[in-house]
């Protein structure tokens, strides 16, 4: 079939700027073919090349004694001792989920699971951080229901427990929801697989599902802003098949045991193109592909379509040719496609043959190595104006307002649609704070959390960036885990606007500082830019996914508050109300600065809690809604009332950082006070648990009444 002529319109439709096209002409010394144009577009879009963010991402701390593999591979790898490692990453599927919520979210889950098992790890936990528009926006209900069903539909069938996440609502996401999917797996440290090809003349093998036309151009779509043509973009969304993914998982893990795999890479964004180029580039080899051998499920597919298809559940592997028969037998057993589609070659060349024709012949290194990199102009976010007076509120009325909001109501409606117990190693279910999963067959456990407070990041990207990491740190410490490492999913608007670029730069600076101070290096991540609709950007949302290790399940802090326990506040309270949940939900005010984060204090308080975990019956971190919401959530989980002595608004609802609420028996509390004095850590008794009422200062309500609101408000708003 004849390929279209290259025209200015065609170049623009591929998301390539005129200067970028000039660069292509310089690199190859001639006009590209249509297929070649598609390949460049796929490799150079923001989603695959990180061209706007790369410069700043390099400043992040990525190393540490615990790190086996940092960013650059399919997922990060961190040592958990005893010859095992945790492999994890978070990735966005924002644009596809807005266009087609069920399949967009489902394939987001599928993609992140593949990133993990490509490396030889069996997925053991998933999380999802979701941001939607205003609850009353006409599209929100459809998106929430579709996204949640899609995540469940994929993860439940695949068989990975979903142990945590976040759901938030803000009008800034009206035209652009965020779906950030996290997955973690466990591998033996001597059986980790990487993507770098090695050896010349080695067979390149296509594994998994057949290639169709779904998702052609998806990565380029994901790097564009939305406008009113969005409905036309639906065909760029892929369709997921979790049953095939489950078989692909089992077949790959079996295959990896045989020694047949030299290197392996999943086909994600820009499918065959991106995976083949990445394997060749990392191995300093060229790749030749013969597209006539690619298993297809549609007739008359062109080279262009095959190279850019984002059909799901596919892998590319460089095979040890001596074990071809064994390898093929495993894929036959699981009824999956196994086809040798090419070979590694010595010269730096990406050669695509189809129907006895050369469809592309490009210098391979240049496709990834010379991708444009921009130092986009940026302006620092202006300092927030000081917060005007906040009137005193009735603390129970304010608490009632918070738990009535789908932002702070229980997310049970969401996580009950996810299988959070499959694999029978879930020890702490989703709901509050970190989820905990036992390392199968051992007494160790891993804790998982995902956190960010976008309204803080908007007010102050540096402190907001720090806060996201600090909150993740606290959620891990609150279950008794030692924070190990972090993955970041940076969701921002159009980086070509200096103020948006300033948000990105500031957030990265804050995240970097916090990850260094708290010894939680970034080992993997993803950047999602152009999250704008008709020029309106989302709230800057750098989602932090973090993993912690619990040496023995007996060391977990996983209890609930008991009748008579003292409520003890660990950390300093100033009463910071700027950008607080109270201000937003009760007063509809979005003012003031984000709370400052004292990283040194964060570290000391977290270590103090872990060191003294035997003195603590239950613990939770303080974040949105401050002491009042934390105390209520702890009481509600335990089914006992709580009394907080001080009902002053700033005391009850201030969002000062570095704080935890602990439940301790009287004897434990005494010992804790002594330990705190010795460690010079601020602790104070702020109330007690017991009875069947929630009392804050002079105001009170039945726990059951508030619990009813808390349990039903989410579904009432959006289900």
């Amino acid at each position, binding site marked *: 079939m004849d390929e279209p002529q290259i025209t200015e319109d065609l170049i623009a439709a591929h998301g390539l700027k005129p200067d970028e096209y000039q660069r292509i002409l310089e690199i190859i010394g001639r006009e590209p073919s249509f297929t070649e144009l598609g390949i460049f577009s796929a490799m150079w879009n923001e989603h695959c090349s990180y061209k706007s963010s790369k410069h700043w991402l390099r400043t992040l701390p990525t190393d540490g004694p615990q790190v086996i593999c940092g960013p650059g591979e399919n997922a990060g790898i961190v040592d958990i001792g005893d010859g095992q490692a945790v492999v994890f990453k978070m990735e966005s599927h924002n644009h596809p989920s807005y266009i087609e919520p069920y399949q967009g979210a489902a394939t987001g889950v599928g993609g992140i699971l593949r990133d993990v098992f490509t490396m030889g790890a069996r997925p053991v936990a998933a999380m999802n951080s979701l941001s939607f528009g205003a609850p009353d926006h006409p599209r929100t209900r459809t998106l929430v229901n579709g996204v949640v*069903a899609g995540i*469940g*539909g994929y993860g*439940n*069938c*695949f*068989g990975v427990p979903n142990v945590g996440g976040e759901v938030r609502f803000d009008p800034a996401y009206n035209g652009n929801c965020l779906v950030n999917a996290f997955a973690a797996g466990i591998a033996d440290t001597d059986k980790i697989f990487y993507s770098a090809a090695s050896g010349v003349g080695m067979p390149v093998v296509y594994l998994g599902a057949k290639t169709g036309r779904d998702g052609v151009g998806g990565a380029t779509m994901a790097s564009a802003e939305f406008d009113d043509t969005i409905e036309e973009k639906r065909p760029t969304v892929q369709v997921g*098949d*979790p*049953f*095939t993914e*489950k*078989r692909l998982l*089992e077949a790959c893990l079996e295959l990896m045991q045989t020694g047949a795999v030299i290197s392996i890479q999943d086909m994600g964004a820009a499918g065959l193109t991106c995976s083949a180029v990445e394997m060749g580039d990392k191995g300093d080899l060229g790749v030749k592909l013969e597209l006539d051998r690619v298993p297809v499920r549609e007739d008359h597919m062109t080279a262009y379509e095959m190279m850019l298809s984002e059909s799901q559940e596919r892998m590319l592997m460089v095979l040890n040719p001596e074990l071809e028969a064994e390898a093929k037998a495993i894929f036959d*057993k*699981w*009824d999956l496609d196994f086809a040798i589609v090419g070979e590694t070659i010595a010269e730096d060349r990406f050669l695509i043959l189809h129907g006895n024709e050369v469809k592309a012949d490009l210098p391979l290194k240049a496709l990834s190595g010379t991708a444009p990199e921009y130092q986009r102009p940026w302006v620092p976010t202006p300092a927030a104006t000081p917060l005007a007076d906040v009137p005193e509120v009735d603390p129970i009325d304010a608490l009632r307002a918070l738990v009535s909001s789908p932002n702070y109501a229980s997310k049970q409606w969401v*996580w*009950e*649609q*996810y*299988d*959070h*117990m*499959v*694999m*029978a*190693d879930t*020890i702490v279910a989703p709901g509050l704070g970190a989820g905990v999963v*036992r390392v199968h067959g051992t007494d160790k456990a891993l804790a998982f959390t995902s956190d960010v407070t976008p309204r803080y990041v908007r007010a102050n990207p540096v402190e907001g960036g720090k806060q996201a990491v600090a909150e993740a740190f606290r959620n891990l410490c609150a279950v008794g885990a030692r924070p190990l490492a972090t993955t970041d999913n940076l969701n921002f608007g159009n980086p070509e606007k200096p103020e948006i670029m300033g948000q990105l730069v500031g957030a990265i600076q804050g995240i970097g500082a916090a990850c260094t101070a708290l010894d939680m290096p970034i080992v993997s991540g993803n950047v999602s830019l152009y999250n704008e609709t008709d020029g309106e950007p989302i709230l800057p949302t750098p989602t932090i996914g973090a993993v912690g290790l619990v040496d023995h*399940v007996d060391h977990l802090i996983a209890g609930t508050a008991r009748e008579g326990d003292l409520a003890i506040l660990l950390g300093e309270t100033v009463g910071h109300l700027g950008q607080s949940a109270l201000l937003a939900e009760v007063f509809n005010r979005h003012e003031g600065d984000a709370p400052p984060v004292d990283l040194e204090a964060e570290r000391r308080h977290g270590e103090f809690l872990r060191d003294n975990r035997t003195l603590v019956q239950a613990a939770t971190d303080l974040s949105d809604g401050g002491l009042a919401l934390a105390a209520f959530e702890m009481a509600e989980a335990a089914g006992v009332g709580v009394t907080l002595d001080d009902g002053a608004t700033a005391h009850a609802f201030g969002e000062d950082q570095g704080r935890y609420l602990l439940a301790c028996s009287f004897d434990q509390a005494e010992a804790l006070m002594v330990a705190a004095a010795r460690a010079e850590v601020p602790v104070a008794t702020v109330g007690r648990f017991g009875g069947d009422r929630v009392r804050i200062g002079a105001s009170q309500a039945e726990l059951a009444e508030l619990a009813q609101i808390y349990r039903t408000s989410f579904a009432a708003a959006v289900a």
Partner: protein
Amino acid sequence: MKAGVIVFPGSNCDRDMAVAFEKAGADVQMIWHKDSSLPSGLDVLGVPGGFSFGDYLRCGAIAAQSPICRAVVDFAGKGGHILGVCNGFQVLTETGLLPGALMRNSNLKFICKNVELTVATDDSAFTSGYERGAQITVPVAHHDGNYVIDQDGLSRLRDEDRIAFTYASNPNGSVADIAGVLSENRRVLGMMPHPERRVEAAHGGEDGAAMFRGLIDALVPA
């Protein structure tokens, strides 16, 4: 005591069920769905949860046609004990070993949570570890657990004391709150809740363990 666990390509609770059998003291053998015969000397067979063939059609319908299911039906015919959990229950109804069918949950959503069950009969190897009428906590995790059976079938189940478990608070719309049923010879049990997810303290409770222990006590001569 020798237990077998069937593995379909989309099973995902096969390991969990094997672990629960092993914890109770059984030797466990995994059995691939393409095999056409069972290992000899099995005391009990487990059909685990998951999405056997993706469940894009009626859940369990394709699994029921797999080679191993002919052997499973033969095993039942010879008086073998079979435990089907969740998707396993769906497969057993599709093979005809158990009456009724599992439809989409009445709220149309996947439901994963702990539920309270009432042990409706202790007259089976599976439920011998419980007292009749006991309240136990076991999780459910399914999209299609809404048990349906016609009026005559329901009357028979009741008359023959073949309702094994009922929900204290019906999560999925099942007829008569039914969570699990026994075959006529009381040697095949299908249930939607997952007893294998509740067999040790780390699971938050051990109410499921009594099923596996009771089964072994009942099947292994003292």
